Structure formats: C-alpha cells, structure tokens
C-alpha cells in the first residue's frame, strides 16, 4: 500500500464537522423512517445504482436454470437413445420368436424351442449349445432349424443341454435334393481361407442333370436323420466338375448360423416330411413332390 497523502483540501474544520453531524443524523434517522419510505429508498437504489448487479444476478440465475434444463434434457435424450438402441434388437428378437412360434405350429409339437449359446472360445467355432437336452427328448443327430431353414445338427446331448454343429462345420453332411426332386446329392462345408470364406456345397449331382442358378435345395430325407423338405439354400454356381459324371454346386445358405439365437430342435421322430412347415414362397420353390413344377 502506498503511503497516505497529505491533508485533504477540505474547507474549514467546522464545516466538515457540521456535514459529518448532518450525515450521522441522517444515518441514524434512516432506522426510524416509516417502512414505506424505507421501501421507496430501497426501490430507488435497486433500480438505479444496484440495477446492473441485480441484472447480473438475473442473468446468472437464468443461465443456471438453462444449464439444469439442458442437463435434464440431455439425460432424457440419453435415456431415449439407450431405449432406442436396444429397441431394434428386441424388435428383431421378437420377430424371430414370432416366426419360430409360427414354424412350431406348422411343424408340430415334436420340435422343441431352444436358445442358442455360442461358447466363443478358441476351437469352438461352428459349434453351439442349446438349452434343451435328453430330458426334453433331444437325441444326437436331431436337426436344428430356424424360421428360414436348416441351421445345424445336434452332436451330443446332455440332460439339460446339447451341443450342436452348424453348416460351417466340416462334419455337417446332410443328404439334399433340388426342390423339384430332380437330383439328389450330399451337402458339405468347405473351409475358406477365412471363416467368412466358408462355402456350402451340394456335391454328387449327375453331370448331365440341368441345375439352374437360384434353384432351392432341401433336405432329401435319405438316411433318416433329417426329415425331407427342410430348406438349406439356393444354387449359386458350379463349384467343380469331375469327368463327365459328377458336378458340385456352390450354395447360398438360407440360414445364417451367427444370427440364429432362437431355434427349434427336433425332439423325436416327426415323420419323414417337414416341407409343409416352411413357407415355400420364401424358399422360392414348390414343395417337393407337388406337381406344380
């Protein structure tokens, strides 16, 4: 703090004392003013000298209120976003379950609904667990189907669950046929350079049998493991030819194993024809054995 200055250049001492006395009188008198007068003085000062500070307070209060409102809106938006993000998955699952219920009604009570779990551990590729087992009547070799078609087959059953393989597994070998029943063959999975490169192949088709691209391929029911008529896929192109007696075709699989979260598993012998369980319009062909083609 700098040193204080010299004597102020005020007037006479007497005048100074008189002014001070008058001010003190006013100050003490302010306490005894009528409340209305006190209020009037307060109002005058509030709308004049103190107005900028009161305006600042209003601005800050409004800003604080807006901030709280924005935070509340942000929280609401976050909740809605979270709900929306899960809504699509729930809606998809709901749709799958509805389709599965419809499929079960068509296929009959011998198909058990099940939930698919994938272990996700190294070496467990192409295998899955379903939460139905021997106590539900599930046996090894039972087909696993989704509303779109054949997903895989059960390999092992336990009391409460079972282990299955999907069509990407090398051991997946159901007998198959073209949807019009004109040719029969064997389905096999061929490993690609990477998992997404795995291909489904219909092998053993007679060389001179005409097979068009887009033709549907169904289970043939031969061998007694898979009922006849479960959609497997559609023909894409020729995979290989052997001499002049055999051809193999790449298939576009109709069921996506990774997307199959809810499936039906055949619990017991349901007869040898399951073709009526699938909507043939979605398969793209008339049911096998029908005379429409």
């Amino acid at each position, binding site marked *: 703090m*700098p040193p204080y200055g010299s004597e102020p250049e005020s007037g006479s001492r007497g005048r*100074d004392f008189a002014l001070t006395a008058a*001010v003190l009188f006013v*100050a003490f008198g302010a306490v005894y003013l009528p409340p209305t007068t006190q209020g009037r*003085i307060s109002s005058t000062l509030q709308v004049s*000298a103190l107005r900028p500070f009161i305006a600042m*307070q209003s601005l800050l209060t409004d800003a604080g209120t807006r901030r709280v409102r924005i935070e509340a809106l942000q929280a609401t938006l976050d909740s809605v976003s979270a709900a929306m993000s899960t809504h699509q998955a729930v809606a998809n699952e709901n749709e799958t379950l509805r389709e599965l219920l419809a499929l079960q009604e068509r296929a009959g009570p011998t198909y058990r609904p099940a939930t698919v779990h994938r272990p996700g551990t190294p070496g467990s590729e192409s295998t899955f667990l379903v939460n139905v087992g021997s106590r539900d009547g599930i046996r090894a070799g039972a087909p696993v189907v989704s509303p779109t078609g054949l997903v895989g087959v059960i390999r092992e059953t336990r009391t409460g669950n079972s282990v299955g393989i999907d069509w990407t597994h090398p051991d997946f070998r159901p007998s198959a046929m073209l949807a019009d029943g004109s040719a029969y063959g064997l389905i096999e999975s061929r490993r690609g350079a990477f998992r997404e490169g795995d291909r489904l192949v219909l092998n053993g088709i007679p060389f001179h049998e005409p097979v068009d691209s887009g033709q549907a391929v169904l289970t043939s029911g031969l061998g007694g493991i898979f009922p006849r008529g479960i959609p497997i896929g559609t023909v894409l192109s020729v995979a290989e030819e052997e001499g002049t007696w055999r051809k193999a075709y790449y298939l576009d699989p109709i069921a996506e194993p990774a997307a199959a979260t809810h499936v039906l598993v055949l619990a017991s012998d349901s007869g040898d024809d399951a073709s009526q369980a699938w909507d043939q319009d979605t398969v793209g062909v008339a049911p096998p054995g029908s005379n429409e083609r």
Partner: protein
Amino acid sequence: MNELDVRTVLLWIVVVLLFVVHFSLHIGFSYGRGAPDLLTLGLLIAARETSLGRASVLGLSTGLLEDAMSVLAFGANSIAMTLVAVGGAITRDLFVGDSRHFLPAYVFVGKWTRDLVHWIGMGSEVRQPFVEQVVLQGAIGSVYVAGIALVMSWVLGAWGEA
C-alpha cells in the same frame, strides 16, 4: 499531474473497483458470506484519503446501498458504514500509517467495528446471538478482509516501487 495526483487517482480507481467487485460478488453472483466485505475495505481506504465530511457522506452512501438489499434492518448498514467512515477519517489524525502492518490491522479493526455497530443497529428481533454474529462471524470476516488488504498492500506497494 504530479506523482501525488496519480497516486490519488489510482487509489480512487481501486476503491471504485472494490465497490463494484463487492456488489458483483454479493448481489450478482449471490456468494453471500463466502465473498469478502470489499465495500468496507474500500470505504476504510477511502476514508483516509478524504475529509471527515466527505468520508461520512461516502459511508452513508455505501450504507444505504447495502440497506437497499436489507429488508428487515433498514438503516443498520447506514449507521455502521457512516461511523466506520468517520472513524477511518479520524484515524488519519491519530496514525500516520506508514507501516506495512498498519493497513491490515486498521482494516481488521474497522471491519469488526462495522459488524459490531451493524449488530447493534439491527435490533434484537432480527439479529443473531452476539457470540455467533459478532465474535465468530465478525472475527472470521475481519481476518478475511484484513488478509485481502495485506495482499493488496503488497501488490500495490510492489507496483508503486516498480
């Protein structure tokens, strides 16, 4: 302007700034007791720079501004600030005040006196217990303002020497 005039102008600028910051903190930002009583600090500094009469007018003015926001005890601040201003102006005749320790001590006593007079002027139906409002809150508030005065004297002293 000579050096004395410059110093006086700068000092009044500091006083006005203290008044503005005080009302900004107390009314604008609504900090309440968390903000220091810079109005009393500014008044105590100004009181030693002007005559007794002008100091009392300044005290009454600042007191009325405080009272404008005080519904239940109108006038208590006017009395307290006027008396503090008069007391501050009188101290110039009693103390030279060239010691670095003078300003904090002067501000401490001035602020505490202001709280004491304000407590008395409020009236028994409004005021809090003496120990709580004057002894505890008054002492803490006085130390707070005296600390600010100490920092200010260092800053302004260093600035003046530069």
